[in-house]
């Protein structure tokens, strides 16, 4: 902003508008989040049974020399971190979408039955001896989550409340039946146990191209849809009269939630809390703007999951605590912190 522009003095209506364009604190926060993400990503690629210093990690990425450290970073840890970034972003954005859609800050993407559907399908698949290997598990998880979401959408299409109630009911039924099967069939229990704790370890060999592509496409879709969702937050009536096709927007958002949550769950198991907490942490700075909410969650979800993944390797360097358990441990206190900080009003 030039000195001449300032010299015109305080303008009540023009002033804030001009400042907003020159420097937006929201953009600043977003850039800060990206920097944080880069730092955490580099750290996560350095941690493990063989520690690699951050400077060496950066060199491995930018100036590959083929040393042992470089090979570990490039071939083992980079894919794992990318997976964490994709899964974290998918779950967090799915959470932001469902909370916006349901107008309920306690909604999380699993509420639509997607997670339970994936778990059920894997249980059935391994009971039939079909869900073998990671590709098999992945396939069953995807089919299960999509079928569950279709069922919930078909029954609960009329209103967000019906949708959530249907999702909760279906989750209860599927989890119950799946649990019964696992208790009766010990082999199935073993297969499921590994998947169900949520882990990023040893997943990177699985055929991840399809789910990861789906996640990237849906993240872009969420950004494109975010302005219409902005209109939808003003209530159905106002959204209609602003010209946002309410039914279409809601349907598209549901598809995005299902694919994001289903793909993330399929590749990493049911990682709880990310979808619930991340939108909470950024709710205040987003200040009611869905585009910002989605951008922030897209950055902070990966940060949270990378930190959890680092934790999972540091806490138990030999065995690795599954990341799903670490996120739960991190998530509980963070949720309490967010609630205390922003007051119960935000709940």
């Amino acid at each position, binding site marked *: 902003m030039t000195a001449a522009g300032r010299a015109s003095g305080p303008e009540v*209506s023009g002033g804030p508008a001009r400042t907003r364009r020159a420097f937006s604190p929201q953009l600043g926060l977003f850039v800060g989040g990206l920097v944080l993400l880069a730092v955490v990503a580099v750290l996560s690629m350095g941690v493990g049974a063989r520690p690699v210093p951050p400077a060496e990690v950066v060199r491995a990425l930018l100036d590959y020399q083929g040393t042992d450290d470089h090979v570990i970073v490039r071939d083992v840890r980079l894919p794992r971190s990318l997976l964490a970034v994709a899964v974290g972003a998918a779950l967090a954005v799915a959470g932001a979408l469902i909370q916006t859609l349901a107008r309920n800050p306690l909604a999380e993407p699993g509420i639509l039955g997607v997670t339970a559907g994936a778990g059920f399908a894997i249980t059935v698949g391994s009971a039939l001896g079909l869900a073998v290997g990671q590709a098999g598990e992945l396939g069953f998880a995807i089919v299960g989550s999509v079928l569950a979401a279709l069922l919930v959408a078909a029954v609960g299409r009329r209103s967000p409340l019906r949708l959530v109630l249907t999702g909760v009911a279906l989750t209860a039924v599927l989890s119950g039946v799946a649990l019964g099967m696992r208790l009766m069939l010990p082999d199935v229990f073993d297969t499921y146990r590994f998947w169900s704790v949520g882990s990023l370890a040893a997943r990177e060999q699985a055929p991840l191209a399809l789910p990861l592509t789906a996640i990237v496409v849906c993240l872009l879709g969420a950004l494109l849809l975010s302005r219409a969702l902005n209109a939808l*937050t003003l209530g159905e009536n106002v959204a209609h009269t602003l010209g946002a096709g309410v039914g279409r927007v809601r349907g598209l958002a549901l598809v995005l939630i299902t694919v994001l949550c289903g793909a993330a769950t399929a590749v990493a198991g049911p990682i709880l809390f990310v979808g619930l907490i991340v939108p909470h942490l950024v709710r205040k700075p987003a200040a009611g703007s869905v585009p910002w909410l989605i951008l922030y969650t897209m950055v902070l979800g990966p940060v949270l999951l990378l930190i959890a993944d680092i934790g999972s390797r540091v806490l138990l360097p030999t065995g690795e605590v599954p990341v799903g358990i670490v996120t739960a441990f991190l998530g509980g206190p963070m949720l309490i912190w967010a609630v205390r900080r922003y007051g119960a009003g935000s709940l």
Partner: protein
Amino acid sequence: MSARLTAREITLRYGERVVSTRLSLDVPDGAFTAIVGPNACGKSTLLRALVRLLRPESGHVELDGREVGGYASKALAKQLGFLPQDPLAPDDIKVRQLVSRGRFPHQSLLALWSAQDEEAVAEAMASAGVADLGDRPVQELSGGQRQRVWMAMVLAQRTPYLLLDEPTSFLDITHQYQLLGLLARLRDEGRTVIAVLHDINQACRYADHLVAMRDGRVVAEGVPKDVVDAALIKDVFELPSVIVPDPVTGTPMVVPTLQGE
């Protein structure tokens, strides 16, 4: 006065509850129309039908001779601005952001936010008297301030038609007259204003066209001076009254004769 927005024999219902049967209304163009009537007589329902929030079971709502149902969502949103009786603001939103959402129908993926949007928002906030509230969270405003913020949101939409459901219900007396004055000014600039008002004296003072409703029917309509008399008030509101000329404007003024019954 010509009408571009019309309802032809529309039947409106919510499930089993029929609100209006074969109601017809021509909204005079470029005029200020006030709709009055007792609670639950179907005023909001009629407005909802005019802005396509409620589909008539039979009959037609037309804008420029075309069924409103046939318009693309955004095209209609550029014509008809609507303020519901009890709009719902999302948590955490600031006043300027809420007003900015009125620009939604004018934006697209390629034209996200233009100088024109900026100007429309600033002007709407100034007109509605909320220019100095821009950075306040909507949640933390008083009822009247909030109502003016929503009014600004609809003004930012810059539509030729403004359909307002009780735009003054939360305002103090000064702000009520300021808002009515603003609506009259917008009418003078050529816009069409349709407002549900509960204060019949204000309606008589400001409206060019008064629509009195009861039980889902239009009981009387026309220039307030021609239609408002004691018989009409008795018929519509079941209120005994005398009608005197407003000492300031000469328009009809309803003075109830009930005393503490």
